[in-house]
C-alpha cells in the first residue's frame, strides 16, 4: 500500500531543500518533515504526497552541527515542523521566522531525541516559556485556555484583540504533549497499533490503518479482501461520527437546541453501531497488522437496516439544518481560508477541500478497499466555515454509499480469511489513511523485530497552524464556529 522512494542521504540538507522546492513547484505537497537521531547524525526526512503515493526524501545533518539552514523561508508549510524538530532535538533551523517552543512546555532539559536508545528525563514545565506577541496601543491578549469552558481538550488560544475584532490568534499546544513518538520505540509491532489508536482517539481507526499499512509494507503482507472491506466499514463509521460531532458543535454554538440534541443522538447511534460490530464504540482493536481481528458481529441484513435507518434520519435533519437561515448566517464568510493559502500549505481533509484543494487519500492514493469502491471527492471554492460544513455533509452522504457497498461486497465475498501473517523484518515504510480530519501519515522503522522509530503525523497537526490565517475580519463571537468548523483533535496535534 505504501511506496518507498529513493534515498539521497549523502547529498546533504541544501540539496534536499532544492529538490523539495522543485517538487513542490511541480505540484507535489510537503506532507511531513521530521527528524530521527542516528549514529551518523540527525536524519531529516521529508514526505512528498502526490497522486499514486507518498515518497520519502532524507538528508543527514552531520554530527556535531548545532544548526542547519531553515526550510520554512522557502516552503511555508514547514513552519511548525521545524519548530517541532527544534523542540525534540535542540537543533536550530537558521533563518526560521519564529523559533519558539511548540510541543514541549520547556526548553531547559535534555531533548527527547526520538531515534536514540533510552528514556529521556522527565520534563519540568516552564510557565513563562512563550512570550506574548501583543504590541500596539489599545491591543490586549485574551488568554483562552488551557482549561476552557465546556468539555474540550486542553489547548490555549491567545486571542489578540483591540476589543471586538481578532487581528491575530496564537496557540500554545504543548500543554498536553504526551511524548507519543518516543513511547513507540522498543514496542513490538503488534503492540504499536494499540498506541497508534490512542494517539488521536477520535480517529482511532484511521491511525491504526496508517500504522498497520506501514507495518504490512515492511512485512510484504497482502491484506485479505474481506479484511480490506471491514477496514473501510469502520473507517467510514468513524468519519460519520466525527462529522456529526462537528455538526453538534456548530449547532450548539448557534444555540439550536433541537438540532444539537438530534445530531447528538445520531452520533450516539453511530458509536453504538460501531460498538455493536466490534465491541468498541471507537472501533479500537479491529485493525491489526495483517488484517482485522474479527468479522463484524452483526449479520449483513441487520447492518444494512441500521445503516439505512441512520441515513434516513440524518439526511432529513441535514436538509433542515442547511435550510435554517439563522444558522447559515453564522457560518457564511466566517473564518475564510483563501484557496491560495490552502493550496500553498497543502491543507488536508475537509479544511483543504472546502478551499478548493481536491486531495483525498482514499481516491488519490487508494488503500484498503477504496480503490475498487469508488469515492466521490467533493470540494468547494469558498473556504469559509459554511463550505467546510458542506464538504462534511457531502462526505456523510458518500460515507453511507461506501458503507452499503462495503457490506454488499462483504456478503458476496462470504466467509474468507480476515487476517494474514505479518512478521516484519528490519525495514522502513510509510503508511497513510484519510482520517475524518484529513490525511494521517506513519513512517515506521523496524529493527530486530521492534519499533526503532515511529513518526506519527496527524492531519490535526498539519492543519491547526492554519488557524493563524482565518481570522481576517472576524470577531470574538465567531471564534467557536471557526474552531468547530476545523474539527481537529488536540491529542493528535500535541503528540
Amino acid at each position: 500500500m505504501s511506496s518507498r522512494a529513493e534515498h539521497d542521504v549523502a547529498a546533504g540538507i541544501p540539496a534536499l531543500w532544492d529538490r523539495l522546492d522543485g517538487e513542490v513547484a511541480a505540484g507535489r505537497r510537503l506532507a511531513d518533515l521530521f527528524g530521527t537521531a542516528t549514529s551518523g547524525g540527525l536524519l531529516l526526512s521529508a514526505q512528498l504526497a502526490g497522486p499514486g503515493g507518498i515518497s520519502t526524501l532524507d538528508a543527514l545533518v552531520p554530527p556535531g552541527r548545532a544548526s542547519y539552514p531553515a526550510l520554512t523561508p522557502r516552503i511555508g508549510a514547514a513552519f511548525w515542523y521545524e519548530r517541532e524538530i527544534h523542540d525534540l532535538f535542540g537543533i536550530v533551523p537558521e533563518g526560521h521566522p519564529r523559533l519558539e517552543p511548540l510541543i514541549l512546555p520547556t526548553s531547559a532539559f535534555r531533548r527527547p531525541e526520538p531515534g536514540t536508545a533510552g528514556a529521556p528525563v522527565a520534563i519540568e514545565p516552564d510557565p513563562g516559556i512563550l512570550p506574548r506577541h501583543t504590541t500596539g496601543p489599545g491591543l490586549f491578549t485574551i488568554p483562552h485556555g488551557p482549561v476552557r469552558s465546556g468539555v474540550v481538550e486542553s489547548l490555549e488560544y491567545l486571542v489578540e484583540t483591540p476589543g471586538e475584532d481578532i487581528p491575530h490568534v496564537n496557540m500554545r499546544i504543548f500543554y498536553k504533549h504526551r511524548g507519543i513518538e518516543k513511547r513507540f520505540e522498543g514496542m513490538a509491532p503488534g503492540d504499536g497499533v494499540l498506541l497508534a489508536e490512542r494517539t488521536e482517539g477520535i480517529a482511532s481507526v484511521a491511525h491504526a490503518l496508517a500504522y498497520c499499512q506501514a507495518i504490512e509494507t515492511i512485512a510484504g503482507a497482502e491484506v485479505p479482501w474481506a479484511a480490506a472491506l471491514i477496514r473501510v466499514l469502520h473507517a467510514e463509521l468513524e468519519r460519520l461520527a466525527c462529522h456529526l460531532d462537528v455538526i453538534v458543535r456548530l449547532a450548539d454554538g448557534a444555540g439550536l437546541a433541537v438540532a444539537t440534541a438530534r445530531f447528538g443522538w445520531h452520533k450516539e447511534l453511530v458509536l453504538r453501531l460501531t460498538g455493536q460490530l466490534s465491541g468498541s464504540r471507537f472501533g479500537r482493536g479491529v485493525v491489526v497488522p495483517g488484517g482485522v481481528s474479527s468479522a463484524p458481529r452483526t449479520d449483513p441484513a441487520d447492518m444494512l437496516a441500521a445503516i439505512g435507518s441512520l441515513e434516513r434520519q440524518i439526511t432529513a435533519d441535514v436538509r433542515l439544518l442547511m435550510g435554517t437561515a439563522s444558522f447559515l448566517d453564522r457560518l457564511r464568510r466566517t473564518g475564510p481560508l483563501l484557496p491560495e493559502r490552502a493550496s500553498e500549505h497543502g491543507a488536508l481533509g475537509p479544511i483543504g477541500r472546502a478551499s478548493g484543494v481536491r486531495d483525498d487519500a482514499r481516491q488519490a492514493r487508494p488503500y484498503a478497499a477504496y480503490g475498487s469502491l469508488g469515492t466521490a471527492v467533493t470540494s468547494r471554492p469558498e473556504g469559509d466555515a459554511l463550505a467546510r460544513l458542506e464538504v462534511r455533509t457531502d462526505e456523510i452522504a458518500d460515507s453511507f454509499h461506501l458503507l452499503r457497498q462495503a457490506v454488499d461486497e462483504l456478503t458476496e465475498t462470504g466467509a474468507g480469511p480476515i487476517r494474514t501473517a505479518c512478521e516484519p523484518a528490519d525495514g522502513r515504510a510509510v503508511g497513510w489513511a484519510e482520517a475524518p480530519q484529513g490525511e494521517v501519515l506513519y513512517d515506521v522503522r523496524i529493527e530486530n523485530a521492534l519499533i526503532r522509530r515511529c513518526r506519527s503525523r496527524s492531519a490535526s497537526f498539519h492543519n491547526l497552524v492554519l488557524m493563524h490565517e482565518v481570522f481576517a475580519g472576524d470577531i470574538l463571537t465567531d471564534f467557536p464556529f471557526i474552531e468547530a468548523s476545523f474539527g481537529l483533535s488536540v491529542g493528535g496535534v500535541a503528540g
Partner: protein
Amino acid sequence: MWALRGLRNGVLTTRWPDRPDDYAAATRGPAAVLSEAEAGAISAAGLTSLCPVAAISQDQPGSVRVDQGRCIQCGRCIAARPDVFGWAAGPQSASGSRAALVVPADETPASLTAVSGQLRERTRALRRSVHLRHVDAGSDGSEEWEIMALLNPVYDIHRLGMFFTASPRHADILLVTGSGARGMAAPLRETYEAMPHPKLVIAVGTDAVSGGIVSPSYATSGGVGSVVPVDIWLPGSPPSPFAILSALLLALGRLPAAGSAGPAAASAGHAATGDRQ
C-alpha cells in the same frame, strides 16, 4: 420547524438507573478473571505475553491478578484464553479505592462500603444539584466525547440534577481525563484549588487512573493521582457514557443498592461474560 422535528422520535432518554437499560447492562468493562484455578496454571511468562500494558500479574504461584486500572480493553488476554479471562459486564467499573481495581480484590467489600459511606457523607450537602467541571490532562480525545455524550438526549444527565459548569468556582465534582501530561499539572492543580468544598475528583479512563499505554513517558506522570487527590477511579479506554454516569452516581452515593457491590461483583466472576458487547 425544529420544534416539530424534536417531537419526531418521541422520548429517547434512558430511565437508568431507576429502570434497567439493555445497553447499560451490556456495557463492556475492563478484563476480569473468570477462573482463578485455570489462571493459576499459566506460567508467569505466559501471563506477561497476554497483556501489552502489564495489567496481569502473579504475586505468587496460583494467584493471578488483573489490575483493571491498567487495562486498556484491548481484549488480547480474552482472545488468547477465553476460558480464563472475560469482560467485566455492566457500567459499574468505577471504585472508590485504587487498590480495589486489582481483581480478584484483596480489599474486602466491608472497607469499600466504608469508603462509599465516607463519600456519601462528604457529598450529602450537594443533594440533587451537582455541578461538574472537566479538565483534560493529556487524553486522546475520546474520553471528552464520552463525557459530552452525557448531555445528549439519550443520557441527559440534567434529569439527575447534574450540570456542567465553566467555572471551577461553581464546581462540585472534577472529572479529570488523560495520562497526566506534565504540561497540564499546574493548570489542573489550579483548577482543583479553585473549587469550593466539598469537592470530589473522578479519574475518568485508564489513562487518568494509571497513565495507560502512553505511559511511562518523559511527558506524563503516569495518571493524574499524583497531581490531585482522586476519590473515584474509573478505568476504561475510554469508559462508556454509562460507566461515567455510574461513577458520578457512585461519588454521590446514589447508585442503586443492587449494583453497590461494583467491581467486586465483576472480580468474583459472577458478572463477567465471555465476549459480550
